[in-house]
């Protein structure tokens, strides 16, 4: 029966995709027939979440192997889609195009970093960890280096990094649920959380895998359809990725023409919090090489250390499949990431070009304030204009927008039907939910498997282990939601920190575990503990007015943390005795794909 399901995957998801497209068409007919925009938004979010919940229910399991690694039978392409959904968070979906819109080149380091990291995943880690046969990332650390301390430290790093990340995701689900369902944010956060738990609670990794594939399909349609539609509607080209060179050049011209006028501090105080103006060149190089490279490098090494991504490659049928699957993951990520700069270009041009009907720069302030979509997004606190110089005309420096508005508002500005906005909400929800699921599961699995089962009660039966795993899942979810409800950090800030934390503590212990036989327990423990502490210390120092050094900022503190981790690990390893012959033999076995995995099938 199970084998049947795997064989039928293309058919199952083909029907699902067709069904989703049909649903979009039904909604647009509904819109023609006078369905309100609110009803459409509710339908989109409720319908997709209900589907995920059904998939989550159908994937329920009572087996450890299925709960922790989806039975290790997820085909490469589908694992690629699941990883892409796991990877692309609410931030990628909602905030990335906005970041590019406002910051240009300096921000695009994230695009390079968040894709380049997969080369490290494929070549340094994923196939070897798959051969190892572990359930979680700390499982690898604990078995390779031995001892409960190393296992425990790995759980600590994993929890710090993933928890930082997950609050941002629950926050994003809450934001979208509160807008689409029109309920207060404090409650919407818990609606989001319950949707997330519906996917993962019963089926663990198996449930998350099959819902993530479904979520990928929704989010990629929701991202690409508007980009292509807007581009065609504006007459910018039917395939925007290859045809926007003129538009990019035109933005450069307009920037020259308008100039970047600096606003007085007193004027800026009147702008609502969270909104920004266009102050940086769109396609010109506006950051120093080191600022760009250090951010890209931090994101790449962070990618290779984030446990919720790594554990997706534990679910493939073989080592070979794990490698290929990384390629597919990046391909599916590429589809969205390469579209974000195009959306930013279209969005910016449609707003600032006075020769376009949608352009608002150069129009009178009163005229802009009378536009429907301006009023909508102004009341949603995502758009703002003000006549600083009192000439009655809107200048480039007098127009402010929230980062999310690029994705959320551009369809409306370009005059697309409301059904697209509903679709985008469903896509954002899918992106945030899938990432939150992966993260919560990574934390709960690490604590239930590595702390509870491996350290506290090694004799626990499967049924009991899975109860503990599920209880932890709910507890961690609620803890995340509670913190998300406090709204401490913006979505993107905490996402980037998660990468820095992960690379500070885990990058070198993971990589050297495979590539350096001499690495031992003492070295790994020192690397994890000192790496995480020094990274955290640096962050606190810079946050409290510290000047930092070598141009390492609060967004790239992982570079410092991981450097300390590397030095500590090498020095301490060399000062203590080399690993036992059994451990060295284990490393040899990890390095060849054939033969049995190091850890048995059930462990």
């Amino acid at each position, binding site marked *: 029966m199970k084998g049947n399901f795997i064989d039928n995957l293309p058919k199952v998801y083909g029907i699902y995709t067709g069904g989703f497209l049909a649903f979009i068409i039904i909604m647009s007919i509904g819109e023609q027939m006078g369905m309100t925009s609110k009803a459409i938004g509710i339908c989109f979010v409720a319908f997709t979440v209900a589907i995920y919940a059904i998939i989550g229910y159908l994937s329920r399991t009572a087996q450890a192997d299925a709960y922790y690694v989806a039975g290790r039978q997820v085909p490469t392409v589908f694992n690629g889609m699941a990883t892409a959904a796991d990877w692309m968070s609410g931030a990628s979906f909602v905030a990335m195009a906005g970041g590019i819109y406002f910051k240009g080149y300096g921000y695009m380091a994230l695009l390079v970093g968040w894709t380049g990291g997969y080369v490290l995943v494929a*070549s340094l880690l994923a196939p070897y960890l798959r051969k190892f046969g572990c359930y979680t990332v700390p499982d690898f650390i604990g078995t390779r280096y031995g001892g409960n301390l190393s296992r425990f430290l790995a759980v600590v790093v994993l929890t710090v990094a993933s928890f930082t990340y997950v609050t941002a995701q629950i926050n994003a689900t809450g934001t979208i649920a509160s807008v689409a369902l029109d309920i207060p944010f404090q409650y919407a956060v818990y609606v989001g959380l319950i949707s997330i738990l519906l996917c993962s609670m019963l089926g663990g990794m198996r449930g998350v895998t099959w819902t993530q594939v479904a979520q990928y399909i929704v989010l990629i349609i929701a991202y690409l359809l508007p980009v292509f539609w807007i581009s065609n509607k504006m007459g910018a080209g039917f395939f925007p990725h290859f045809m926007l060179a003129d538009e*990019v050049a035109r933005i450069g011209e307009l920037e020259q023409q308008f100039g970047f006028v600096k606003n007085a501090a007193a004027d800026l105080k009147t702008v609502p919090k969270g909104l920004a103006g266009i102050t940086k060149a769109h396609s010109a190089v506006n950051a120093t090489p080191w600022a760009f490279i250090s951010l890209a490098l931090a994101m790449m090494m962070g990618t290779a250390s984030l446990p919720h991504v790594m554990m997706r490659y534990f679910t493939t049928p*073989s080592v070979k499949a794990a490698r290929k699957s990384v390629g597919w993951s*990046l391909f599916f990520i*590429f589809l969205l990431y*390469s579209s974000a700069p195009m959306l930013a270009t279209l969005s910016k041009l449609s707003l600032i070009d006075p020769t376009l009907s949608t352009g608002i720069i150069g129009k009178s302030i009163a005229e802009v304030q009378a536009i429907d979509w301006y009023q909508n997004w102004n009341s949603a606190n995502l758009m703002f204009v003000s006549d600083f110089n009192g000439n009655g005309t809107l200048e480039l420096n007098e127009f402010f927008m929230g980062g999310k508005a690029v994705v959320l508002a551009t369809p409306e500005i370009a005059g697309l039907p409301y059904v697209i906005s509903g679709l985008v909400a469903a896509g954002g929800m899918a992106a945030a939910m899938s990432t939150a699921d992966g993260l919560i599961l990574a934390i709960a699995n690490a604590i239930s498997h590595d702390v509870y089962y491996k350290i506290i009660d090694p004799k626990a039966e499967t049924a009991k282990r899975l109860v503990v795993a599920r209880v932890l899942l709910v507890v961690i979810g609620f803890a995340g939601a509670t913190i998300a409800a406090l709204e401490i950090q913006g979505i993107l800030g905490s996402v980037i920190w998660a990468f820095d934390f992960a690379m500070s503590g885990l990058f070198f212990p993971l990589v050297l575990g495979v590539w350096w036989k001499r690495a031992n327990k003492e070295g790994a423990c020192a690397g994890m503990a000192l790496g995480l502490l020094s990274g955290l210390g640096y962050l606190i120092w810079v946050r409290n007015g510290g000047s930092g050094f070598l141009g390492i900022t609060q967004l790239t503190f992982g570079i410092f943390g991981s450097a300390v981790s590397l030095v500590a690990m090498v020095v301490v390893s060399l000062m203590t005795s080399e690993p036992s012959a059994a451990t060295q033999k284990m490393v040899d076995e990890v390095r060849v794909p*054939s033969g049995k995995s190091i850890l048995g099938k059930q462990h």
Partner: protein
Amino acid sequence: MSKQQQHWEKTRGLLMMTLAIWFVFSIGIFLFGAEMNEVTGPFGYPWTYWFTCQGSLGIFVILIFWFANRQEKIDEEFGFSEREDD
């Protein structure tokens, strides 16, 4: 040298080559971002802008598939590849 050592030697060689290409397109070229952006590149975009939007990203995708194929060949050569029914 044992079969296993030879296999690892080759695997390490492939890793170095992969990381070298990765380094060029994730870090190397951006040392010259400002200069490179003066020149018009693919589809009429400035070179640096194109690399950050599509170029580097696409090269990474191809690089991983290329790496996976090469590694499979190495594994086969030394008889270390997995059985299909595994």
